């Protein structure tokens, strides 16, 4: 079976000389289609660095990185933009919605850059917002939404292009427990529907929703535990759908 994600011996060094920070010291990570991976580790262990590389937001100092069988590092600027647009959905800890644009416009944006026609764009954006339970908030701007609602808009935006891979860097880090459950419920249902998800988290509670937990320390993978089979359902799906 072809891998969605194949990171081989990736290293990342920030700065140079004496002040150089080795954020990643050779990380390898393979993710199969349909997997639901939680990445854990202490603060500064390199989780976000790894995630940014996977999301094509940053480039590794050394090492190879294939996404859906494509060597992303070898692509030119324009093709990388297409990869970000079509293959990856990124959810940030700080939401990163564009201010003064309604929820609907924010969700439509990736489709606009992807060249989807306005009518089709609207239909798909509304469907994505409906999926995260925000059908009644489409006309609101980010500053008129709660944190949890903003994060759900961000998830809708990440999902709207039907990406191969959904990445989330501490998506519940800024949310209270109710909103956290909302978000985890969405992720679990997406996973049950077959979407490949990689999520970073500090909280063991959140990690327990994944099928597999990867632990980083000092820029290395120190532990890789499977909680549920790749083609099975996420372990705590029943709780969030109850």
């Amino acid at each position, binding site marked *: 079976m072809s891998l969605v994600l194949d990171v081989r011996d990736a290293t990342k060094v920030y700065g140079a000389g004496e002040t150089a920070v080795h954020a990643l010291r050779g990380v390898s990570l393979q993710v199969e289609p349909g997997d639901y991976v939680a990445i854990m580790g202490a603060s500064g262990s390199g989780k976000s660095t790894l995630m940014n590389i996977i999301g094509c*937001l*940053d480039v590794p100092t050394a090492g190879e990185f294939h996404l859906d069988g494509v060597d992303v590092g070898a692509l030119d600027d324009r093709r990388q*933009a297409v990869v970000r647009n079509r293959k990856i959905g990124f959810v940030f800890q700080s939401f*990163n919605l*564009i201010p003064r644009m309604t929820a609907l416009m924010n969700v439509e*944006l990736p489709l606009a850059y992807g060249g989807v026609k306005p009518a089709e764009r609207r239909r798909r954006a509304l469907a994505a917002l409906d999926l995260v339970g925000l059908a009644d908030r489409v006309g609101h701007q980010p500053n008129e939404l709660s944190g949890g609602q903003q994060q759900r808009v961000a998830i809708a935006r990440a999902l709207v292009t039907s990406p191969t891979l959904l990445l989330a860097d501490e998506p519940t880090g800024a949310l209270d427990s109710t909103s956290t459950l909302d978000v985890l419920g969405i992720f679990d249902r997406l996973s049950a529907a077959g979407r490949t998800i990689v999520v970073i988290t500090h909280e063991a509670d959140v990690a327990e929703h994944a099928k597999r937990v990867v632990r980083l320390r000092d820029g290395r993978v120190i532990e890789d535990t499977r909680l549920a089979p790749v083609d099975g359902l996420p372990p705590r799906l029943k709780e969030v759908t109850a």
Partner: protein
Amino acid sequence: MSAVEIVRFAVRGLAANKMRSALTTLGILIGVAAVILLVAVGEGSSRSIQQNIQQLGANTLTVSSSTGGGGGGGGFRMARQQQDTGPRTQARPLTVDDARALADRAAAPHVSSVSPVVSANAQAASYDGASHPIQQVIGTYPSYFEASNKPVAQGTYFFNDDVLAARKVIVIGQTVAENLFGALDPVGRQITLTGVPFTVVGVLKEAGSTGGFQDADDVAIAPLTSVQQSLTGFGPLNQILVKAGSAGDVAAAQAEITSVLDQRHGVGGTVAADYQILNQATLQETVSAATSTFTVLLAAVAAISLLVGGIGITNIMLVTVTERTREIGIRKAIGAPRGAILGQFLVEATLLSLIGGLLGVAIAVAGAQFTIAGITPVVVPSSVVLALGVSVAIGLFFGSYPANRAARLRPIEALRFE
């Protein structure tokens, strides 16, 4: 990602900061309006000067002495040359006999009329308590009216008989008529010119005050002999106004005048001419060279303000890009290609300058309807095209630096930007 959408993003970006967009637009607006208006003022003054010259009358040549009298520049140079070259002791002034010789159809077949002219400036005239200093009193022959293109609106001209008999008759300009007579009909009334009574026989057609120069209507024209008797004395002529048969005859007439006068004044060999001939064409050339320099100067001043407006756009675009770096990062993270980001900011900059430019054109065209400093501006279409073109080019040029910087950022750099 269609072009329409990029424009929509740009408009939204500008609308998000209306005050700033408006002020930037104002900078370009002022620059464009200044360029168009100042060029229009330059063009307007140049046209009015040309008109003044044309009012001299077509096909006319003005002969004046190079040595004082009514002569133009060059008198000093001529005097020096005489000392150097020696043979002749004195430059001869223009005389009525010179004029008569030019009127000889055998010697000068292309000359149709010759008018000797003497003039006296600022002569006090009065009528029944009212007084007015006439800017220029001209003594001449009746042919002068046609040659100098000064038709009479009321009454008549004077005639050759009047010149022969030195009758004290006079034709006055509109300004003189208004100042001395007000609403009265001046024809037939007697005015006093520096103590000498003159009978008004006619009033000139209004020439219109053209440009900021002298008032062409503040004149009086009387027979040559009368003016010489009462005002100037029987000295040299100020000038001789010669009218050629037609526009095509002007060059031939000028050659004939030269040969007649050279002979009479003993010019030739080492002896330089002691008179000069001005024709309308050369005068026009000289003046238009001067006025176009003036126009270029005005345009240069205005161009600087346009440049300042352009720097304003760069500044605003830099601020905008910096302020929205995070947004750029988000857009890139969700797959915005470099071209879309570049396009958005370039369109923003171009829209700012285009709107400013169009408003500037509108204001300049509106402003050109008014008289500015006595000059009726004439909008030059090429200046409108140029100012608009330059303002858009400025938007593109000065906007491209910040836009490029925004588009080249790596997503993570833009997202981390605080």
